[in-house]
Structure formats: structure tokens, C-alpha cells
């Protein structure tokens, strides 16, 4: 039913419709509203049978999920940012053991300096863990992806992470068609684990694998991820049939048919980009956008196809690899290596910095004139940066933490003590 509802709440209700049996929670902004809502549903009996476990850390949250899943229960958890890093070891373990856990990642940057706002640094840090990572563009898609995630996870016996932008989606209240229980039940069969700990049929799970077999284990995991490239569109198609709306899949193109310049991005920023694209189209520029829903496994062929006609590919990313540049860009580069197109990386929205349509349009205009740097930082306050660099260069004493000086600089400027 279409309702005006907070994204977190909608996700929580959807997850509940997926009948998780063990839900583990450790609070971290901006994931809290999701687990609070699921917890309340378990406590009230609305979600039953289900064990809701308040743990002492994200590491424990993923570990409890591992135990529950290995024992044959459908397991769900949610986290963000530092929490994801704190559970990192277990994140690898869950996929290594092939446990179909579903986790919501309410994307948030990673400190320090500590920052609670949105970007994709957390998701990028786990791209090599062996989890399937799906990115939601809207809250509607976030909701729909959760239903699909359980199906994908359990069919492949692999964990799936649904990434949704923290605050921007999780805390936004908008019209969302929250799936009905009957529809979810029809779409998502009961969990039948591929392997399970059972006293009646005991096995040892989690053996130590040496050099003689480890590469094969990893290769088989890779093959399983490749299977996901076929399964994910199929599940999306099934979902469209069952729920009457399209969501999920590998990639989505918007106005790319004749586009010279195509923007590639993940998550909720795609909405703002589409507005910008429409505006540039209105101004006569041939621009389009490709949204990547499935980030892991990375759909190299689908991305290549989507970008086939573009002269310029501009990857707008809310994360970057310090010391190198784009993260998503390197993946996109692999997909476009056989084409003649130029590839630009635009780092934007770090630590919750708003990505505005105006800035995007300016950037697109520059791109259209090939005036874009290969690595561009959208909306970067160069004044602050230059003053700090100058101070560092002039410093005779120990330089001190840059972060604090930048904050001080910004504060002084706000008070009019420094020329902008």
C-alpha cells in the first residue's frame, strides 16, 4: 500500500514481511530507525516468531547473524559506517561461509574526523568482502530491494547488503508502496539453507583451508558471484511481475539513447542528477545518466552496454580512494576500456555535503566542453584548502591536525574574520 512514511520505517516493515527469524541490532546513526522499528514489531508480537537481540557491538551483531544463519534461521541486521568497519572481520566471514544474511547499510562516511553524514565510503570499504551489494536510488527501491535481497541471498547462499543513503533516504518521509505480507510470502519462499548445523546430520563448518585449496575456494566464490549477475535481473523481473513495479536489476539508464555525456552514479544522488540531466537536455545538451543498482558483483558487461554510445563518462561518486581517486570509476573504467570515451571522476557529497542540482549542472556544462579535470572534487572550497596548504608550508613548528585547522578556518570565515 502506498503510504507517506519514513524510509527507515518502510524498510523495517518490509523486512518484517520477509519474516526474519533472528534480527540483531547495535545502534548507529543513521541506521537506528530501522532496527528500532523492527525491534518494536518483534516486541509487540507483530513480527513473530522472531528473536530480536540487542548486542554489544556491530561485530557481535554480524556474529549473531552468522550463528543464526548457520543454524538455519533467516537472519537480518543493519549498520552503517564505523559499525560496518567494526564488524568487518565478520562481514568477510559471513560471505566466506556462504551464509545468506541480509544487511541494510545506511550509508555513512567513515571517520576520522568523525562525521555522521552520508557518503559511500563504508560501502566501498567492503566491496571485496564477497557480499552482494545493491544500491537503492529511492526509498521505494530500498524497500523493494530488501524483498529481492532475501531471495537472491538464499538462492545463492551468499549474504546481500542493501545500501541506502543514510539520512537522505533513511530519514526521508515520502510516499512509499510498502509491500503487503501476502505478496512477499508469494515471492519469498521459506528459508531452506544450503548447509545447516544440525545435530541429526552433523558437519564441521569453517574448516581451515590451506594453500592447496584456498585459491579454488575463492575462485568458486567468484563463480557464485557471477551467477548473481544472471539471478539478480531474473529476480527483478519476477518482482516486477509480482509487485507491478520495476526495481532492482543490474543497471538503469536514463536518457542515454543519444547521449554524448553519460553520468554514472550510485544511490539517491541519481534523483538529483536526473533533474540536472533534464535541465541540461532542456538547454540542448545530450546528456544521460546510468545508475548502478548492483555494485557487487560488478556488472561489467551491462555497464559497458549502457555506456556504449557515450563520448564522455562522468562518474559521480560519494567516496574516493585517498591516494588514488575514484573507486567506482576504476570499475567503470574496466567496463569502458574497449571504448573511445573519456572517463572523469567527480567526487561529491563527502561527509554529507549536499550535492545540488546547480553544482551538477555546472559540472555537466564543464564536462560538455571537456573542461573537466580527470579527478574533480565537486563544490570544493579551494580557499580553505589553499590557506591550509600555505600554513603547512610556512609552519616552523609541528603542523597539528589539518581537520581542526580547517574547521577553525571555516569558523573564522563565517564570522567574517577571513576573506572568503
Amino acid at each position, binding site marked *: 500500500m502506498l503510504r507517506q512514511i519514513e524510509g527507515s520505517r518502510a524498510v523495517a516493515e518490509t523486512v518484517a514481511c520477509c519474516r526474519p527469524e533472528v534480527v540483531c541490532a547495535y545502534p548507529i546513526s543513521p541506521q537506528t530507525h530501522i532496527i528500532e522499528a523492527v525491534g518494536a514489531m518483534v516486541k509487540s508480537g507483530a513480527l513473530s516468531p522472531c528473536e530480536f537481540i540487542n548486542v554489544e557491538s556491530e561485530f557481535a551483531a554480524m556474529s549473531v547473524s552468522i550463528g543464526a544463519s548457520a543454524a538455519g534461521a533467516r537472519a537480518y541486521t543493519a549498520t552503517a559506517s564505523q559499525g560496518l568497519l567494526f564488524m568487518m572481520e565478520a562481514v568477510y566471514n559471513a560471505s566466506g561461509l556462504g551464509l545468506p544474511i541480509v544487511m541494510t547499510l545506511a550509508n555513512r562516511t567513515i571517520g576520522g574526523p568523525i562525521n555522521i553524514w552520508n557518503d559511500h565510503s563504508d560501502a566501498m570499504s567492503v566491496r571485496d568482502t564477497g557480499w552482494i551489494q545493491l544500491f537503492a536510488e529511492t526509498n521505494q527501491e530500498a524497500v523493494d530491494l530488501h524483498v529481492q535481497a532475501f531471495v537472491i541471498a538464499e538462492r545463492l547462499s551468499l549474504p546481500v547488503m542493501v545500501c541506502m543513503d543514510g539520512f537522505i533516504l533513511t530519514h526521508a518521509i515520502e510516499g512509499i508502496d510498502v509491500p503487503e505480507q501476502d505478496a512477499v510470502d508469494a515471492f519469498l519462499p521459506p528459508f531452506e539453507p544450503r548447509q545447516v548445523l544440525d545435530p541429526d546430520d552433523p558437519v564441521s563448518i569453517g574448516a581451515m583451508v590451506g594453500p592447496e*585449496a584456498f585459491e579454488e*575456494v575463492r575462485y568458486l566464490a567468484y563463480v557464485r558471484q557471477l551467477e548473481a549477475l544472471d539471478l539478480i535481473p531474473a529476480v527483478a523481473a519476477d518482482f516486477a511481475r509480482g509487485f507491478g513495479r520495476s526495481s532492482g536489476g543490474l543497471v538503469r539508464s536514463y536518457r542515454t539513447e543519444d547521449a554524448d555525456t553519460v553520468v554514472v552514479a550510485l544511490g539517491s544522488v541519481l534523483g538529483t542528477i536526473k533533474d540536472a540531466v533534464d535541465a541540461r537536455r532542456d538547454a540542448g545538451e545530450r546528456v544521460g545518466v546510468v545508475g548502478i543498482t548492483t555494485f557487487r558483483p560488478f556488472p561489467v558487461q551491462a555497464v559497458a552496454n549502457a555506456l556504449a554510445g557515450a563520448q564522455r563518462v562522468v562518474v559521480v561518486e560519494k567516496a574516493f580512494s585517498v591516494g588514488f581517486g575514484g573507486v567506482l570509476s576504476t570499475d567503470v573504467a574496466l567496463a569502458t576500456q574497449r571504448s573511445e570515451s573519456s572517463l572523469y571522476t567527480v567526487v561529491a557529497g563527502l561527509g554529507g555535503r549536499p550535492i545540488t542540482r546547480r553544482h551538477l549542472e555546472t559540472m555537466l556544462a564543464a564536462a560538455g566542453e571537456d573542461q573537466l579535470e580527470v579527478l574533480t572534487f565537486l563544490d570544493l572550497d579551494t580557499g580553505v584548502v589553499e590557506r591550509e596548504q600555505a600554513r603547512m608550508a610556512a609552519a616552523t613548528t609541528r603542523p597539528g591536525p589539518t581537520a581542526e585547522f580547517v574547521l577553525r578556518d571555516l569558523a573564522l570565515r563565517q564570522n567574517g574574520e577571513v576573506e572568503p
Partner: protein
Amino acid sequence: MEPPFAITLDVGSSRANHTGSWRVERPVYVDRQPPCSDACLAGERVQQWLYQAEPGDYEAAWRQLVEDNPFPAVMGRICYHPCETACNRAQLDEAVGINAVERFLGDLAIDRGWELPPAGSDTGKRVLVIGGGPAGLSCAYRLRRLGHHVRLVDSAVALGGMMRFGIPAYRLPRDVLDAEIERIIALGIDVGLEHTVEDIESERAEGAFDAVFVAVGAQLARRLDIPSGDSARVLDAISLLHRVADGDPPQLGLRVAVYGGGDTAIDAARTARRLGATDAVVVYRRNRGHMPAHGDELDEALAEGVTVRWLSVVDRVDPGRLVVEKVRLDDEGFPVPTGETEELAADSLVLALGQDTDLTLLERAPDVAVDDGYVQVEATMMTGEAGVFAGGDSVPSQRTATMAIGHGGRAALGIDAFLAGRDATDPPLAAPATFDRLNTWYFAEAPRTRRPELERARRVSTFDEVVGGLTEENALFEARRCLSCGNCFECDNCFGVCPDNAVIKLGPGERYRFDYDFCKGCGICVAECPCGAIDMVPEEI
């Protein structure tokens, strides 16, 4: 389930990995000679019958016991139990009360009327046993079980020898003795009482005996030439005890001195008390540390009011008094006169200075060597004459009933081998089960059970048995104090403590087997075996 490659494994699959290849030493089960059995002069396999008694199967225990000794009830009273002296448990707390358990089994057997195992099938061989004391009876019993015809002769009116005529009834009630002797005779032994063998050679020839066992004992009391006044009352202990046994006790007076330091001296003194002596003093020339009498006997005597005059010799006997000279011990423990004398009031003096054997029956047997009054025998108890064996007090050894029973048993085996033309040498004994091999932590603290003793007031007035028997409960308790030194008693320790599950339990009575496919040779089983029944041996290269 389709378990993922390598990550998930089928249970127990590591049994394909034979870790036995890690081993440089291997454990092996051994059986060792326990000190009790080793010390038993009667040849009892003590540990084995205790083992049978531990679960409460007393008949099995008794049957195991009488394999080697047909006198459990007697031994349980008069044996000086060298087994207990040797018992390893003495180093832990106190020795196992083997003797008490033996008596319990013996008494129970009499009470329940258990019969000895039947005689063996007839071999057609005839054996003459001369002497119906413990050695002769023991030998006769064993020979009958081996199927030989046995003729047992004794010059006395009843069988038992020193058991009957030398040991006071308060230590060995006659009904007990009779019961155990009757049980032996019932196996079909041809007994001739009041039959004194004058000449062994003619007796053997006349009876067409294939072999003879000489067990005539040491019946002749040693005398000492002590200056004595007229009518001084001097008699020997053997006569005293014999007459008491015959129901014809001599008059000793109120003050009795006994001269000597052996068990017979103590018996004589205690008997004197029972015959009405108010003072019974043992005069002994050395100190307690040198006294040959068993400590238990001495203690009981002292408890009954017997006194001892240590480091004293009797110089002279006069009516109503003795002259006693004090002595001191030299560096080697020999008494040296001091010249210092004193008088001791005594109505009679009983000499308990040892006994000798009457060997006139061997005078016409030139091949039987006699040295210093003792018949010389080989390990099989055979004398220099083929087919003539000897044992008991007449051969050089400790003169106890236990020893005699052992001699009888060994002689029987020697005779059996002789009759069959076999070599009778014993198989080599297993290595000793020493205390240091035990892991005593597994044995709970367990003080020994004391046998009840008769109140002192009754002791000196009657010949009632002084030392009582154990209740069944206490006998069981006592049996279970056995440490089973050197022999597996299936405590499951090796099976339990192996970190590699390399011990296979074979089931009750079957013990265990090492699974050398997996044994890494750590040696924990050896260290934790309570009874030291596992050895580590180097792997062969």
C-alpha cells in the same frame, strides 16, 4: 545439503590422518609382580583374590585364594602377613589389611560350607607325605588336586602339627583349624595318625610310593644349660603349649618368667597369663629392635599385662627366683655381659629358645643331605634323593606356618613335575611393581580398618579368640584399598586420558589395546596409570 567445497567437512574424517607416525616411543601394557604376592610365603596370588573380593564376589575370591593355600581361615589368624609388610599402600597411608580379608573369606567359606575344588583325575601315582602340619597338609592338598594318591601320616593323635600343638587357641580356635583340615582330607587323602615313620626308605618301598614329602617339623625344644637349684621349676615352651592344647596344662605358679624373644616366647607368656599367672615376664637378652617376635604379638601381650625384661640373660634358676644379668649390646648388636645381676621373683621358668627337628627317619637315606640339623633341598624342595622332598620347619627357612604351607605347595608342584619327568623350574617372575611406578593420586585417602579386639578383661581369663573378624562391609572396604600394583584393573584411565583416542576399550575383563595408528606417544597414559601397568618403550628404527 550441498556443503561448500573445503569450508564444510564431513564429521570424523580426520581418522584418515594416522598420527601414529609422530611417535618415537610407544606405550605397552605390562603385568608386574605385586609386592604382596611376591612376599607371600604361602605363594598366594594376593592381589588376584583381593581383586575378586572388591566387587563383593567373595566365593570367587576364596576360590582364587585356595588355589594356592587351603587355609584362609587359619592364615587369616596366625599368618604374620609379610604381604602387608611389603604392601605399597603402606607408603601411602597404611598397608591393606590383607590378612583380615583373608580371614573374612576363610570364615565365610566355613560358614557357607564352600568346598575346595575336587581332586584331579587319578594319575596312578602314589605319594607319601610325612607330617600333618601345615607343610604336609598343603602338599597333600595340592597333590590331590593334581590327581595323585596321597598317604598322609603323622605321629600325633590329630592333624595340624604346630598349628594345633604350638599355637594357643586364643589365636587359632580349634574349630576353625578342624574345619579347614577336614575340608582337605575330604578330597580323598589317606590319613594315618599316630604313625611315626622310622625309616623313610623302607616306608617308601613298602607303600610303593613314587615320591615322599618329609614335613616332620621342628618338635624338639632346645635346652640351655642354666645352673639351677633343686626343684627349680623349668620347662620348655613347646611342651607347655602342647599340654595346654591337650587340655592338660602344667602348674606354673603366679609368677612366670619366659626366657626367649621369639613368637613362641610371647605365646608362652600370654598362655601363662591365661593359666593364672599374675606376673608373666619375658626375659630377653636384646632390645625390642632386635626381637624376633612379631610386633603385633608383642603389643597384644603387653596389652594383656605381660612385661619384658630387656637386655637380660638368666644366669641361674632357683625355686621362687631367678638371677638375671644385665647385658649391653656391642656395635654389631650382640649382647655382652656386664656382670651386673639382680634377682627376679619367679615360680617357674619357661624356656622358649627355639626348636630342632628329629631327623632319625632319614638316617638310612644317604643321599638326603642334612646340614646343621636342616634337610638341604633344591628350589623344587627335592632333597638329594630323587623323589624325596622336604619342607616346613625341617628345611632351612623361616619357621612359620605360612612358610610351611608355601613349601608344601611348592613341593607338590615339584613332585608333580618329578612324577611327570618334567623340569620343575618356575617361570621367571615379572618385574616388581614398585611404589614409584604408581600414580597414587587416584587412590582416595582410606585409613585401614581395625579388626575388633576382645576386651582386655576377658583376654587374660579365657582362651577365647582375641582378634575378631571383619564385618562384610569392612572386608569389602579393606579389599578395595588394594592399589592393584603393577596390574591393570580396568580403571579406564588410559582410555580416558588419551588426547588422541588411541586407546581401545575391549570390554569387562578384556582390558585395553593401543591403537598405534593414532597414538602419538605422549606418555600421559603411562603417567596417569594408577597401578603402573604401562611401560614406554622406544620405537624400533
